C-alpha cells in the first residue's frame, strides 16, 4: 500500500494520547507549526460526528468514538491531533513538538473493576456496560440430577493482531469532486458505505480501492484513521497519505479476545454431560466497537461439539481504558471452544476418565445433522467422532499415553502432556450474500469479479479454479479482479471465513450463467437450439450434443462475438446468499514441560480440520498452518499487557511475544472433507479453524502434563512463568 505513487501527497501523522484516561486541557501546536509547511488540526477544526458503534442490537449507542478526541482521552493511543507535513520525518518531528496539557483521571484497566462502575469512561451514559447478551436469569435446577459439577475460569487474554503490513491509507479528491481512497483493508465496499455515511457523502462520490494488502486477520476493518485521511483529502484539496508505525499499530489497531469466561459443567459419573453454564465478561476497550458484540458468537457456539441438554449463557461487555477490541482471527468463537474444551477436561479429570472417552460419550452423533444446540445454533453437517478418531490415530494416542505413564513412573523432570481439542465453529456467521461476476474476454479467457477481498487468502487462485472448472478453461486463462468499488458493483469483503462458501459460490453461479448465455450465442451461430448445445469441459469447446464436430471453442466464440459486437452478451453477475456453515475438527497437541523451570516445548500438533469440500488443498492447508500458529501463539506466547494506569507494557515487537519459526514446530495437518449441503461447492470456511482448534489442544496438553502435581489449570498464555506459578500454587 505504501508503494502507491501519489504525486504531491501530504503526510499525515497522528498525535496520540500518552495517558489512558485524562481530560485534555490544552493543545499547543505553536512549536510544531514553526516547522516548514506543517499544519496541526484538532477536534476544534472538525465538524464530524462519532464513529460507531456498529448498529448491532443490544450495543449501547452512547459509547462511540469521536474521530478526534474531544476534551477527553480514553486510552493510550487515542488521537488528539493531526499533523500535516510534506514528508514522514518532518511529521514525526512535528508530532513530538505538539504540546498536550493533560489532566489525568483515574484509569480503569481490568474489566472486573470496570463492571463496578466506579470509574466511568462515559459519565453521561452512567455505566461502563456497553452490552448484555443471553439471560441473567438463573435456573436453580440447571444442575439438578448431576452427580458431579465442575467450575473454573478461563481468561482468553488480549492479543494484538499484528498483520505484517501495518495499516496504510491514502486519498485524493478528483477534479470531478469524487474522492478516491486507497486503503489497507479487508472490506472495500463496506468501507465506501461507512466513509460516505460518516462524511455525509453520496456513496457514488466515493471510490475505495484495496490494493495488495499485507494481512488483516479481522483487524483491518474501517477505523477512525481511514475516515480522517479521507476527510483531510477533501478538506485540504491535496492528496494525503498515512502509514502507521508498528509501535503505533500495537496500540491503535484494534486488539482481539480479552474475555473472562466462567464455566460450570455438570454431568454423571459415566461421563455424560447434562448441563453447562457460561458467563462472559468481555473487555471491549475504550469504545464500543465490534468487540462489544462478539460474546454473542461465543454464546451461540457455547455447546461446542457436544449434545448438552441444558445450557445457560450470560455476557456483559464493558468499556475500559485500553485499546478497543474488535475481530481477530476467530472473533468470539475461539473463546467458546477454549472454555468448553477446558471445561470438558476439568470434568474428565474430576471423574478420572480419559478426556478422549468423555468426548466420545458426549458428541453430537454424525447422523444427527442438521442439529440444533441448546445454545440455539443450527449445525449443518459434521462428524465429530470421526475427526477425533482420525486425529488420535494420526498422533498415535495410545503410545503417547504409554510414554506419559512411563515418565510419570520415573518421576522425570520433563513431563509429557497430551491435549485434545474438538471444535466446531461458524463461518458466514450472519448469513451474508456475496457478489460474483464472470465475463468472457476477447481472447476467450474469463474475468471473475468478486465482492470478496483477498489479502493473502489466494482467492485469485481459488476463484479462478472455480470458474475455470465450470467453463472448461485452463486456470491461467481466468483472472480474478477484486477490491475496486468502481469496477466491482458490490461486495461485503473478507472476514469470518466466508469467502469461498459465498463469494466462490457466487463466482460459480455467475460462470454457470455465462455458460448458458454462451450456449444461446453458439446456438445462434450454429443455427441450433440452445438446449442442444453442450460444453466439453476437457477442451473448452461448445458443440452440438451428440456431434462434437459441430462446435466452437471459447477462443473462436470470443473472437467471432467481438467481431459481431456481441461479446458483451457473455457476461453475467450473480449474488449468492446462504445460511452459516459449521466447520469442525480435532487437534491433538503433545508438549514437554520442565517441571522445575516451567519451560514448555510444543513437540507436535496434529490437526484434523474439516471445512467441507476443498477447492485448492494447498491453499486450504496454508490457511490451517497459519491459523494453528496463531492459536499456539495464544496458548503459549502472546499477551497484550497494561499496567494499572493503562500504560501498554507490550507495545512493540520487542515486548510482545509474537512467535518466530524457532518457537514453533512443523504442523501435522490431516485432511477430512464432510461437504455442506448449503452451497453447490460443498465448501465451508477454513481461515479461522486452525486458530480455534489449536489453542485449547495446547492449553489442555500443558495442564495434562501437570496433572500428577495437582494442577487443574494454567493461565493463558501457558508460558514458563504461568506454569511455574501453577506448580507453586498446587504445592502450596
Amino acid at each position, binding site marked *: 500500500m505504501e508503494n502507491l505513487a501519489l504525486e504531491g501527497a501530504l503526510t499525515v501523522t497522528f498525535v496520540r494520547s500518552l495517558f489512558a484516561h485524562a481530560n485534555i486541557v490544552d493543545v499547543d501546536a505553536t512549536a510544531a507549526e514553526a516547522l516548514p509547511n506543517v499544519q496541526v488540526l484538532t477536534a476544534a477544526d472538525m465538524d464530524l460526528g462519532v464513529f460507531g458503534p456498529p448498529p448491532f442490537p443490544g450495543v449501547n449507542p452512547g459509547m462511540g468514538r469521536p474521530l478526534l478526541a474531544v476534551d477527553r482521552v480514553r486510552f493510550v493511543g487515542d488521537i488528539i491531533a493531526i499533523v500535516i507535513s510534506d514528508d514522514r520525518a518532518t511529521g514525526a518531528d512535528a508530532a513530538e513538538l505538539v504540546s498536550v496539557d493533560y489532566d489525568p483521571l483515574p484509569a480503569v484497566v481490568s474489566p472486573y473493576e470496570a463492571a463496578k462502575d466506579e470509574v466511568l469512561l462515559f459519565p453521561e451514559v452512567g455505566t461502563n456496560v456497553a452490552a448484555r447478551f443471553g439471560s441473567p436469569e438463573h435456573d436453580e435446577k440447571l444442575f439438578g440430577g448431576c452427580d458431579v459439577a465442575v467450575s473454573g475460569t478461563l481468561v482468553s487474554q488480549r492479543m494484538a493482531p499484528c498483520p*505484517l503490513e501495518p495499516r496504510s491509507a491514502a486519498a485524493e479528491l478528483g477534479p470531478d469532486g469524487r474522492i478516491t481512497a486507497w486503503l489497507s483493508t479487508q472490506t472495500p465496499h463496506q468501507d465506501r458505505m461507512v466513509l460516505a455515511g460518516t462524511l455525509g457523502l453520496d456513496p457514488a462520490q466515493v471510490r475505495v480501492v484495496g490494493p495488495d494488502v499485507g494481512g488483516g486477520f479481522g483487524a483491518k476493518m474501517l477505523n477512525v484513521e481511514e475516515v480522517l485521511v479521507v476527510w483531510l483529502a477533501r478538506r485540504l484539496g491535496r492528496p494525503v497519505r498515512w502509514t502507521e508505525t508498528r509501535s503505533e499499530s500495537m496500540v491503535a489497531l484494534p486488539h482481539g479476545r480479552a474475555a473472562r469466561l466462567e464455566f460450570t459443567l455438570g454431568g454423571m459419573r459415566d461421563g455424560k454431560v447434562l448441563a453447562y453454564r457460561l458467563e462472559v465478561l468481555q473487555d471491549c476497550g475504550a469504545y464500543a466497537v465490534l468487540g462489544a458484540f462478539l460474546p454473542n458468537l461465543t454464546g451461540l457456539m457455547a455447546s461446542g461439539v457436544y449434545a448438552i441438554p441444558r445450557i445457560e449463557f450470560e455476557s456483559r461487555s464493558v468499556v475500559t481504558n485500553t485499546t478497543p477490541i474488535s475481530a481477530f482471527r476467530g472473533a468470539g468463537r475461539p473463546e467458546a471452544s477454549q472454555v468448553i474444551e477446558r471445561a470438558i477436561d476439568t470434568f474428565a479429570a474430576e471423574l478420572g476418565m480419559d478426556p478422549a472417552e468423555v468426548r466420545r460419550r458426549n458428541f453430537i452423533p454424525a447422523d444427527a445433522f442438521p442439529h440444533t444446540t441448546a445454545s440455539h445454533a443450527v449445525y449443518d453437517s459434521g462428524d465429530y467422532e470421526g475427526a477425533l478418531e482420525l486425529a488420535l490415530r494420526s498422533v498415535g494416542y495410545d503410545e503417547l499415553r504409554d510414554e506419559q505413564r512411563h515418565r510419570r513412573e520415573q518421576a522425570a523432570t520433563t513431563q509429557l502432556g497430551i491435549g485434545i481439542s474438538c471444535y466446531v465453529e461458524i463461518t458466514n456467521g450472519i448469513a451474508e450474500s456475496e457478489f460474483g461476476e464472470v465475463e468472457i474476454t476477447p481472447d476467450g479467457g474469463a474475468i471473475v469479479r468478486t465482492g470478496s477481498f483477498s489479502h493473502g487468502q489466494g482467492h485469485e487462485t481459488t476463484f479462478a479454479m472455480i470458474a475455470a472448472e465450470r467453463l472448461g478453461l485452463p486456470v491461467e486463462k481466468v483472472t480474478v479482479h477484486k477490491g475496486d468499488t468502481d469496477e466491482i458493483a458490490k461486495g461485503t469483503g473478507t472476514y469470518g471465513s466466508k469467502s469461498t462458501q459465498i463469494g466462490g459460490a457466487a463466482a460459480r453461479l455467475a460462470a454457470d450463467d455465462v455458460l448458458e448465455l454462451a450456449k444461446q450465442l453458439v446456438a445462434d451461430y450454429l443455427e441450433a437450439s440452445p438446449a442442444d448445445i453442450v460444453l466439453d469441459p476437457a477442451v473448452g469447446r461448445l458443440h452440438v450434443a451428440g456431434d462434437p464436430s459441430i462446435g466452437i471453442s471459447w477462443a473462436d466464440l470470443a473472437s467471432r462475438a467481438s467481431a459481431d459486437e456481441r461479446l458483451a452478451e457473455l457476461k453475467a453477475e450473480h449474488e449468492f446468499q446462504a445460511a452459516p456453515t459449521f466447520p469442525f475438527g480435532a487437534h491433538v497437541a503433545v508438549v514437554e514441560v520442565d517441571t522445575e523451570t516451567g519451560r514448555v516445548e510444543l513437540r507436535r500438533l496434529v490437526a484434523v480440520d474439516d471445512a467441507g469440500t476443498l477447492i485448492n488443498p494447498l491453499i486450504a492447508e496454508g490457511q490451517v498452518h497459519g491459523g494453528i500458529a496463531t492459536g499456539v501463539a495464544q496458548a503459549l506466547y502472546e499477551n497484550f499487557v497494561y499496567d494499572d494506569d493503562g500504560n501498554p507494557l507490550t507495545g512493540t515487537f520487542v515486548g510482545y511475544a509474537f512467535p518466530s519459526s524457532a518457537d514453533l514446530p512443523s504442523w501435522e495437518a490431516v485432511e477430512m472433507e464432510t461437504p455442506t449441503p448449503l452451497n453447490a461447492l460443498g465448501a465451508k470456511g477454513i481461515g479461522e479453524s486452525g486458530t480455534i482448534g489449536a489453542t485449547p489442544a495446547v492449553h489442555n496438553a500443558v495442564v495434562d502434563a501437570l496433572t500428577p502435581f495437582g494442577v487443574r489449570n494454567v493461565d493463558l498464555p501457558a508460558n514458563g512463568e504461568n506454569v511455574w506459578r501453577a506448580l507453586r500454587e498446587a504445592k502450596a
Partner: protein
Amino acid sequence: MTRIALTVNGSRCEADVEPRQLLVYFLRDQLGLKGTNVGCDTTSCGACTVLVDGESVKSCTVFAVQADGCEVTTVEGLAQGDELHPVQQAFHEQHALQCGYCTPGFVMATISLLKENPNPSEVEIRDGLEGNLCRCTGYHNIVKAVQAAARAGA
C-alpha cells in the same frame, strides 16, 4: 546532507542523504526499490532484510551513510530476467507466502542462511530465520521452501 556512493543490485549510485536517513527508506523512497518492506520499528520482524556485502542485515537498523562504499542487494536484484532466483522459486512452489509482505525479507535471510550453511537441518533453519516474522504461514511452508532451495543448491 552527506554524499554516499554504493552499488545497489549491481548498479553504481551516488546520492545525498540526511545523516539520519535509514537504509530502508533510502532504498524505497530515493531509489524506488519498493520490494523491501517495513514491518516494525524495533529490528524485530525482518521484513526489511537486504544483503550488504553478501550478509543479511535489517535495513531499518542501518543508516544509509553506513552503506557508503558497500554492495547492497535487494529482492529486486535476485531474478535473472524472467527467471526467479532458486530461493524465490522454492517459496513460490512450496506456497511459502500468503499476503507476501514478509516474503522479500525471508528470501533475503534464506539466501544468507544457505550461504553460511548450504545443508541446514529443520532446527537450523528455524533458528536461522528467527529474526524474521510471518503472521500468515505459521512458518511450515517457509521451512519446506528453505529445504527445497537447499536441495536445489541455492
